[in-house]
Structure formats: C-alpha cells, structure tokens
C-alpha cells in the first residue's frame, strides 16, 4: 500500500522528467515517487539514466521537461544549494570530497559545525560513536581509503539532517562486509522516517535492502514494484530487455609450459610514495586467464603499470617468455608482443581528441619517429579494422571521445590485437559498459584464451572474475593471495579474501588453501 492510496503525499515526486544531452535522451518522461520511510532502489544498466535522473533532483542537471515535488511542494532545484536547503543529500559514485583538504575542512565546506575548524573537529568527534565514524578529522582526505572517503561524505549528509539521501552505486568501492554495514545504517536511517534512494545495477543489492524498486532501461521507466512482487529473473529481464547470454567457457586441458608472463617478488610504490605493491608473485601461461580480483585501491594501479611496462619494479623482476621485460618504449625492438587494455580507456587507451585512424597508430608498435605517414593508406586500413571490430561508427575521422565507452574499448582492442599478441593484460575491461558491449568484450577475451593467448585479467568486478578466470588471485593491501583454481573456490571465498580474511579459517571451505597452486 503506497502513501498515495492512504491519502498522503509522497516525500518526493518526479513527474515526466525529460533530459537530453545533444541527440541522446538520458531520461524520457520518467516519473517516480519516493515515500518517507523506504529504501527505494533505482535499478538499471550502465547508461540507463539513473544517475542523470537523480542529478536532476539534486540540481546538478536541469530537466528539459517535467516537474519535481518535495514534501508536497513543487520545486525546481537550479543548483545543489537549492536541493540541500530542501533537505536532499547525494553521495556520488566517486566520492566528491576535496582530496588535498582535511576531513574537518571537508565537513566545514559541507556546512557541518559552527563554521570553525575546531567546532567541526568537536562535532566530528561527538558523532563519531553514533555512526562508528572512526576517522581522524585532521587527516588529509586523499590519505584515506575510498571507503572512508565515502563514509565522510555520507556523514556530511547525515549531519546536515537530510530527509532524502541519494546514493549512487555506493557499494562499488566496498568489501562485502562493508556493504552489509552500510546497508544496516541505511535501513536504520529509513526507519527513522526518512528516505533513501539507492542507485545500483546489482540485483543482489535490490533483493537485500530495497522496499521498492524502480527499473530504468534506456532512459525510460519500466516499472516500480514492491520487494517480493517480482522475481530476480523478472527484474533482470526488465533491466536489460533480454537475458544476457552467459559467456561460453570451453575448458581446454593444456600441457604444462613455461609461463608467458610472470612477476617475481615485485614491489612498487604508489603515487603518494606509499607501498602500492609488495612481494607480488604471479604467472600466467598460454591458453589460460588468470583473474586478479580485489577491492579497488589494493595495488591494482601499480600492478597494471608494471605489467604494462610503464615502469620498472622497485624490487623483483617481471619476465615475458623467460626474458626480463623492459619498459614499453623498447618493446618493439625487443620483439615483445603484449596487448595492453588499460582501465581508463578514454584517458590512457585513447588520445581522446585525436581521430580514430591516428589512435590506431599509437602505442609501442606504432610507426617510428622518422617514418613518413602515408595518410590515405592509414585511413583506409583504419576503416577496414574498425569495420571488422564492429566499431560504430566505423569512421576513421571520428574523434576518440565521440564514441561510446563500448566502442572506445573496441578501438583499443582493435589496436592491441592487430599485432597478434601472445599475452594480453586487461584491467577492468568491461567496467561502465552496457551489457551488450560487456559480453562482447568478455567473449573476445574468452576466444583469445581458446586461441592460446595468455591473459591476465585484473578486475574489481567479482562476477567477471568468476565468469572468465581459470585461476584467481586476490590483491589485498598490495600482495597477491593465491592464485586458486577457479573450480576450487566459491564466490564467497574470494569475497573473504578481498576483505583480508583468511579462507582457510572458515569451516565452509577448508580445502581451499591446500588447493593453492604452487608457483
């Protein structure tokens, strides 16, 4: 029974919201009601328009049509300031805190405390026990792990006394344990008569916490249901319009061979000079996918930089086919063929403002400094490559940033696979892509594996790791734990390892540690 039927008005209401970005319609006449006391999940694929819809409510985006209502009064937030004064708070996917300022200063910026730094420090300490807010107020924000930063941001909203709290994919940066802690807090918050909107693309989270769920697909609302009214399968269908095909994983048995790519006792510092990677050991052979799981910020960046040949390890060695791996600039002359798929395809994988035909001519295998560029030939070859990889549009003159994420990733793949690499290193290759592009990329990786290519898949997406990997290592605080054979571990085991817990100590899977493949 909804509030309307009881003759009460909902806490918040969006009616017929339309938001366009150029030719793209992000929200197409979306209507939504949020009741006091509920946790309302906004479910949809990446790019379904969930964040845009909430940005409209928070004053970060202006709707082209439609109207908003909060506590029974029509409103049109022109900026977050308006939304904040109404009592709306939003926690973004990537914490919006100022890294170079301290925790206290960030709280002060958000209007917490009496306007002085010491007042904030006091306020922070006073409420610390209330929400287990055990953060040093004088610490610089960028010295904290992402989960802590998010906690500061949530605390900042709560301290302002918001009535509606919007969280955008808050669990992406959290371990399973932290997720359940967060959900407990959200439940309590809603039970106090306020409301939570949880933006997510994970069905499991909807089932776990939401009172009601609204599904968006391609900018349109599919429907709103109370929990339990629809099954998970039905929600999944509503979300994607079709069931995604599972990636086929042919299990080929392979002989023992020397590893194609291996890291021995590798260490390296992260950007802030702290240890990012410590005594890391891993190896991968032809015809297998080695998955490296882990919560973001546990050394993935450093590991990727080392495997991409962007820098040398501080200690230890990295070997490709038995030879020490030099920096990427000399891969061509050293005859090393490793395909590199970076996490940030739009900033690292591509020169966003250069046309695609030029983007296909970058990287270690690009034409040399003194070579002349035969432009016509390069452009027509680019057109062929783009067509064969089904890049849309297959226009060699399109700029990198004009493509969707999935198509950008295809361009990166097209370039990296054009030299027939024997090894591929991929970091979060499907993050942020829609399901179609996701399964497309995953299938390509799987095909490469069948062709005998050795693949290292560093991913924070546990589902992807479980679906693709033959062996799984877990990055935790800069060290790789495992790897374990995929068939010998459960999703829960990996989750525990990601949180720094020991699998061997649990009674459910006593055999796991023993199954660890010796390297």
């Amino acid at each position: 029974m909804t509030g309307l039927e009881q003759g009460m008005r909902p806490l918040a209401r969006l009616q017929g919201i339309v938001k366009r970005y150029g030719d793209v319609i992000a929200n197409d006449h979306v209507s939504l009601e949020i009741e006091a006391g509920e946790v309302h999940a906004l479910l949809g694929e990446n790019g379904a328009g969930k964040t845009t819809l909430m940005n409209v409510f928070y004053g970060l985006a202006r709707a082209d049509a439609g109207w908003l209502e909060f506590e029974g009064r029509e409103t049109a937030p022109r900026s977050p300031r308006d939304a904040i004064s109404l009592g709306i708070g939003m926690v973004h996917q990537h914490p919006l805190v100022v890294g170079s300022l301290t925790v206290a200063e960030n709280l002060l910026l958000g209007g917490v405390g009496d306007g002085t730094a010491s007042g904030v420090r006091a306020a922070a300490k006073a409420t610390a026990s209330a929400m287990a807010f055990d953060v040093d107020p004088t610490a610089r924000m960028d010295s904290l792990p992402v989960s802590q930063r998010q906690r500061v941001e949530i605390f900042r909203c709560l301290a302002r006394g918001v009535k509606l709290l919007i969280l955008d994919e808050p669990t992406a940066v959290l371990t399973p344990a932290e997720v359940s802690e967060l959900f407990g807090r959200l439940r309590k918050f809603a039970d106090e008569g306020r409301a939570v909107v949880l933006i997510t693309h994970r069905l499991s989270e909807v089932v776990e916490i939401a009172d009601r769920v609204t599904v968006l697909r391609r900018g349109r609302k599919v429907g709103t249901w109370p929990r339990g009214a629809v099954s998970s399968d039905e929600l999944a269908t509503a979300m994607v319009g079709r069931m995604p095909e599972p990636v086929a994983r042919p299990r080929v048995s392979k002989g023992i061979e020397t590893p194609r790519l291996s890291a021995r006792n590798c260490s390296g510092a992260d950007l802030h000079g702290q240890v990012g990677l410590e005594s890391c050991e891993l190896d991968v052979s032809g015809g297998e996918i080695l998955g490296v799981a882990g919560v973001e910020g546990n050394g993935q960046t450093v590991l990727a930089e080392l495997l991409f040949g962007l820098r040398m390890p501080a200690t230890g060695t990295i070997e490709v086919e038995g030879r020490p791996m030099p920096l990427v600039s000399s891969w061509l002359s050293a005859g090393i063929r490793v395909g590199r798929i970076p996490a940030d395809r739009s900033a690292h994988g591509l020169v966003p403002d250069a046309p695609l035909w030029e983007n296909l001519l970058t990287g270690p295998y690009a034409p040399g400094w003194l070579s002349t560029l035969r432009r016509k030939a390069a452009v027509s070859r680019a057109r062929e490559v783009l067509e064969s990889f089904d890049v849309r549009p297959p226009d060699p003159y399109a700029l990198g940033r004009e493509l969707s994420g999935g198509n950008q990733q295809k361009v990166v793949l097209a370039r990296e696979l054009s030299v027939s690499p024997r090894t591929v290193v991929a970091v979060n290759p499907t993050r942020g892509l829609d399901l179609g592009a996701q399964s497309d990329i995953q299938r390509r990786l799987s095909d490469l594996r069948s062709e005998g290519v050795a693949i290292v898949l560093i991913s924070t997406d546990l589902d992807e790791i479980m679906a693709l990997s033959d062996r799984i290592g877990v990055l935790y605080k800069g060290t790789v734990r495992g790897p374990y054979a995929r068939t010998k571990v459960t999703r829960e085991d990996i989750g525990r390892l990601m949180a720094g817990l020991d699998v061997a100590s649990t009674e459910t899977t006593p055999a796991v540690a023993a199954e660890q493949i010796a390297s």
Partner: protein
Amino acid sequence: MTVSDARIARIPGAAARTLLAIAGAMAVGAVVLALAGLPLASTFVSIAEGAVGSSFAIREWLTEAAPITLTALGVAVAFRAGLFNLGGEGQIYIGALGGVMIALTLTSLPGAVLIIVASLAGMIAAGMWGGIAGVLRARLGLSEIITTIMLNFSAFWLVSYLVHGPIEDPHGTRYPWTEEIVARAQLGSVGGVLPIVAIVLAGVTVVVWAVLERTGVGLRIKHCGLSQTASRFAGVRVGGVVLLAMVLAGSLAGLGGVMSLLGDQHRLSDFFAPEWGFVAVAIALIGRGTALGTLAAGLFIAAVRSGVDQAQATAHVPSSVAEILLGAVVLFMIIANADVVMRYARRVSVSGLFTTRRHAGIP
C-alpha cells in the same frame, strides 16, 4: 547528419569563425580610429595602400612578414606539443646574435656559404635557447610560460650588453648596434618585389607542414599535446617530445631573427625585435596552430602592421592600432570558439587551443 558530414563541416566552420573574429576586430579597429578622429574610409584606404599599394609596399610587407611568421611557426610547433612558447622574442635575439657573430667574423667566406652558415648558427643558438625552457619543462615541470618570459629578458639584456660594448659598431655611430654586415651576406629580393626571405618562409612552411602532418614525429608531437597521459601510456617519452618541440620552436624563431638580420635590418641592435614574440603567439593562434594557417595569418597580420606603419606617415595612424587589432582578433576567436557560443565549435587541428578541457594540464 552523419559523422563524416559533420567532419567535413568542421573545416569551413573553423575558417568562418576566424573570418568572423577578424571582422569583429576590424569593427573594434574602426571604433578606435573614429575615437582618434580619423576619417574611416580614407584611413582604411591608406592602410591598404601602405600594405600592398606598390611594389615597394609589397616588398616591405613580405620582408616584415618573414621573421615574425617564422617565429609564429615555431610557436605553432610548440602549440602542437601543448606548450605556450612566449619566448619568441628572446629566441629571435639569440638567433640574430648567432647569425651576426658569423656574419661579422667569417667575412672571407663566399656569400652563399656565409648566409647558410649564419642561418645555421642562428638556428642552433636559438634552438639551444628554446631548449632551456624545454629541459626545464620536461625535467622539472617548470611552466614554459614563465621560463620563456624570463629567458626573453635575459636574452634582451645579454644582447643589450653586447651591442653597448663588445660588439658595438667600432665606427662610432650614435646607436647601440653592431656594424653593418657585409653586402655579400645581405639578402635582397627577386625583381624588386619578392624578397628572398619570403621564399625562405614559404619553403620552411612546407617543411614544417610535412613534419607535423606526415611523419611519425609529427604524430607524436600532436598526441603529446592532446594527451600526455595517453602518450605516456603508449610508451612515448613525453619529456623528449617536449624538449624537441621547444628546440624546434627556438630554431624557427632563430631563423626568423637571422632572416630579419640578413634581409632587412643588417645590424643587431637592442631594438631589433620589440614585442615580436607576442605578435608571433597571436599569429600562431589565429592560424590555429597549423603550418598553413599560420602562414596565412602571418601574411595578414604583417600586412596590417606594415600598412599601419606606412599610414603612420601618410595618414597619422598610430602604429599601436595594429596591436589593438591583433589582440582583438584573438579575443574574438576565443569567443567565436567558445562552447557556450557555438556548441560544435573547436578542434580542427589543435584542439583545446581556445577552449580548456577538463584534462588540459596547465601550466
């Protein structure tokens, strides 16, 4: 409209916006002239006549165009690498200094050899001078905007010191300048109209165009300018590209200095290249950082400058009008290219020259 159509629409769009900006600046110029109480129509006529009204005027125009446009080509190369080379003036002085040292000392060489050696000396000296800013940027991350300005003053005072003493004209003229270079080393003109320095300019423009648009180096310079992050990931030694771009920029400006020395002024003085560095920056901006665009912009701006210079005597037009016009053209180009004003504006060759991107790292 398909993407290809949109691409085709970009280039005339860019040219149209440049012409629009020039028209806007002309309007500002007209207001300024009117404020000064000058009759508009006849003043414009005298400026035009001063620029191209006679074979003498044309020769003067092209002679003036060569050094600043060569310098502007250097600025354009730096733009490609994402660098703001404000050091044109200092690089011109150092280039001319290198040239004049050769021209004054190796006087026994045959004319053609002397000219080539002097040009090379100027280019090498100025290339190294520009390279200082390049090294400081590549190694230490120093903003080239500030270092090139400091290097300008340093170069100026160095030359000033030299022409007031060590290489001062021994024949006791009143001015702080060197003696005139030998006639054999002076560059004249073809048929009294086409200065040899302008032919050099045309040839160098073609070379710069070919390097930027048709070689692996050019591609790397461009990509470094568009995204250092992506270039670093691709394995390009970004520092090397930055250094190379600044050395090229310096040597082009240095060649400009030598051309002014051999083809126009024949002496080095401490009033050799006033504010030329900034004029060159504006020209490269108007030319959108492309070689051919810079050539066109350089010819246009030089025509305005030389026309105003001539009209200063004939129609009492203050020479500063040319600078107002130049600054106004660039300001109008920023406005004409602003996202807010024109949604699909920007790019063509050097993206982000007039608009800032979120990832543009400056300085």
